[in-house]
């Protein structure tokens, strides 16, 4: 995908050295971020990396310590209220008013965002259908399943048709099917032109973004499209399932040409300089030590391996 032509469009979110300190920590450190209209931008990083703080800053919920930012053409420090009409923000623990019904929750936000009364009915029905909540519209929010609550929360943040959506881990704690449905909705919205910035702990979700920013200790350490991030993995990847993964892991780490070993339960992912050359060597070494294994194969690196590898390198520095 080429962005050369798109680069001429002014960014819809732009930050310069955006910094936010809490009492003892610098949660966001000199963040430079430029997001174009219509992008689907993923924020990833370990817990405590500053993803939530970044999204709260962009939503105008926190004061900036230093630096500057423009969102939807408005200055974040001076015009936060103007920005609020342009964005939809969904907090990590989005909590609806549990005693209100689905419909009442929607009209609560419609009132606060001054949605035209003439448009309200049509818009509500469309959002309910969109979120698959039409038949539950009179149910109290507290009695919805976790996945449905997230969809209702999303519908509430969409009621004023925001240009930008800021979503903080919207699918955490949701079952895989609801998660997939939720992302299908996000993709549709993005295709319809909404700019989306979403933080996620799930690497398969990061893979669905146009661009991914990896945060670590308050800084944006990598910002690229998923292919580029995968390409940053050095070497090639071998997967195998040893019966004694701890012994196998210890052994493989000592072999020549092995860059990194990642464990996923008893599944080992081994990064090597050349898969063709090292795969037979690993098999020989394991047999020599009497370690049995199954399903050895060469695989293409995913976001997950790239993420872990990048974070490990950062932790070593």
């Amino acid at each position, binding site marked *: 995908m080429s962005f050369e032509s798109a680069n001429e469009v002014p960014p819809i979110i732009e930050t310069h050295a955006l910094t936010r300190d809490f009492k003892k920590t610098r949660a966001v450190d000199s963040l430079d971020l430029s997001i174009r209209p219509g992008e689907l931008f993923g924020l990833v990083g370990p817990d405590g990396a500053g993803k939530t703080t970044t999204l*709260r800053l962009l939503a105008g919920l*926190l004061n900036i310590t230093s630096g500057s930012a423009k969102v939807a053409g408005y200055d974040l420090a001076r015009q936060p*209220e103007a920005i*609020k009409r342009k964005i939809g923000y969904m907090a990590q623990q989005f*909590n609806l008013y549990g*005693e*209100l019904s689905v419909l009442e929750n929607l009209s*609560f936000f419609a*009132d*606060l965002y001054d949605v035209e009364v003439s448009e309200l009915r049509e818009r509500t029905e469309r959002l309910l259908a969109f979120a698959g909540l039409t038949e539950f519209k009179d149910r109290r929010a507290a009695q919805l399943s976790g996945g449905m609550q997230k969809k209702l929360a999303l519908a509430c943040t969409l009621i004023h048709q925001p240009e930008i959506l800021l979503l903080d881990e919207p699918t955490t704690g949701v079952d895989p099917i609801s998660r997939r449905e939720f992302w299908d909705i996000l993709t549709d919205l993005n295709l319809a032109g909404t700019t989306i910035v979403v933080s996620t702990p799930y690497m398969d979700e990061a893979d669905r973004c146009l661009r991914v920013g990896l945060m670590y200790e308050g800084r944006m350490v990598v910002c690229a499209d998923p292919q580029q991030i995968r390409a940053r993995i050095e070497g090639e990847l071998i997967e195998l399932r040893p019966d004694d993964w701890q012994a196998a892991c210890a052994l493989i780490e000592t072999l020549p040409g092995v860059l990194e070993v990642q464990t996923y339960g008893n599944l080992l992912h081994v990064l090597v300089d050349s898969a063709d050359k090292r795969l037979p060597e690993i098999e020989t070494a394991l047999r020599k030590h009497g370690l049995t294994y199954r399903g050895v194969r060469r695989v293409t690196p995913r976001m997950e391996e790239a993420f872990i590898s990048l974070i490990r390198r950062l932790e070593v520095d």
Partner: protein
Amino acid sequence: MSFRHLRAVIRPEINHILRDRTTFVLVMLVPTAMLFIMAYALTVDIKHVPIAVLDYDRSPTSRAFIQQVTEGEDLDLYAQVDSLDDIDNLLTRGEIKAALIIAPDFEHDLLSLRGIPLQIIVDGTEPKSGGFAVDHIGGRAEEFISEALASRIRALNVNVSLDSLQPIDLRVRALYNPSLKPRVDIIPGLISMVLGFPALSVALTLAHEREHGTLEQVLVTPVGRAEFLLGKMIPYIIVGLANVIIMPAIARVTFHIPFNGSFPLFFLLSAVFLFAILSMGMLVGVFMPTQPAALALSFLVIFFPGFFMTGIFFPIASMPAEMRMEAMSLPGTHYATITRGVFLPGVGLDVLWPNVLALLGMGIVFTAVAALSFRKKLG
């Protein structure tokens, strides 16, 4: 100020009060229950207080005096003792609440028209019963001694008026009133205290929204600060006014408190008080990050001074000057004046206007400080 925003904020709060049983009980039933409990507990009649008597005189007059003091249901003669040590013992073990000591020359002094030394020892850990014993013994002693003196004066045939002897301070008797009278002025005062509960609810609801994450979601909307705060307050003003109807009814029916003033005026002034006290609760809710913190601070600034400093139980006139100033800056003080004034003498605005102005001023100041301190930010 957008009416639509205001209505939007009010609606979930009303729903919360009506649909959440805990909140409903807290704001609708607890004030009434508190009124009942406190009204009964604070005005209970004291009877059968056990006392001991140490009679050094052992004369017919002292025996008659003891007889008269312990007559009736008020004081019970628990023991006649022989030494101060015995009194000490009984007091320590809690078997008596007070002791009366009659001096060796009781009869002699009385007959020669001299001052009569009477000593009463009281268990200071229970000042209520002790004070009651003092008042009662004083009252009885006064009756007995006046009578004895009068007959002695007649017998001696001297020209002395009884009044000039002033055997015992008459004020004791004048102040003491064992009937239900105290309730008459305590209950209207109590109403001003229990109406602090809606204020607590406001503080708690703000802290709850902050803890629960609903506040974060509201802060990203274009809702105004004043719209949000007023919207949170109005439902509890309505709830408070429901209590304002229920409680005078209870006061009249259950406790037979006369309501001599105008009810519409009382209702209106109650609304002004609710505005003042709820804005105080709002201030607590704006600054406290969690519900336990909001609860603790509410007790410290609303209920505790409401109990001790608003003149319901302890007269403001007897407070030191600084405390009096503090008392005058509490909404409860002014509302207690209003409730008593409207209930008992049935006075109107011509008398109560300074209190009404004070309440309005406090409400406006507290709301303004709350609105200015409330930032549409987290942390």
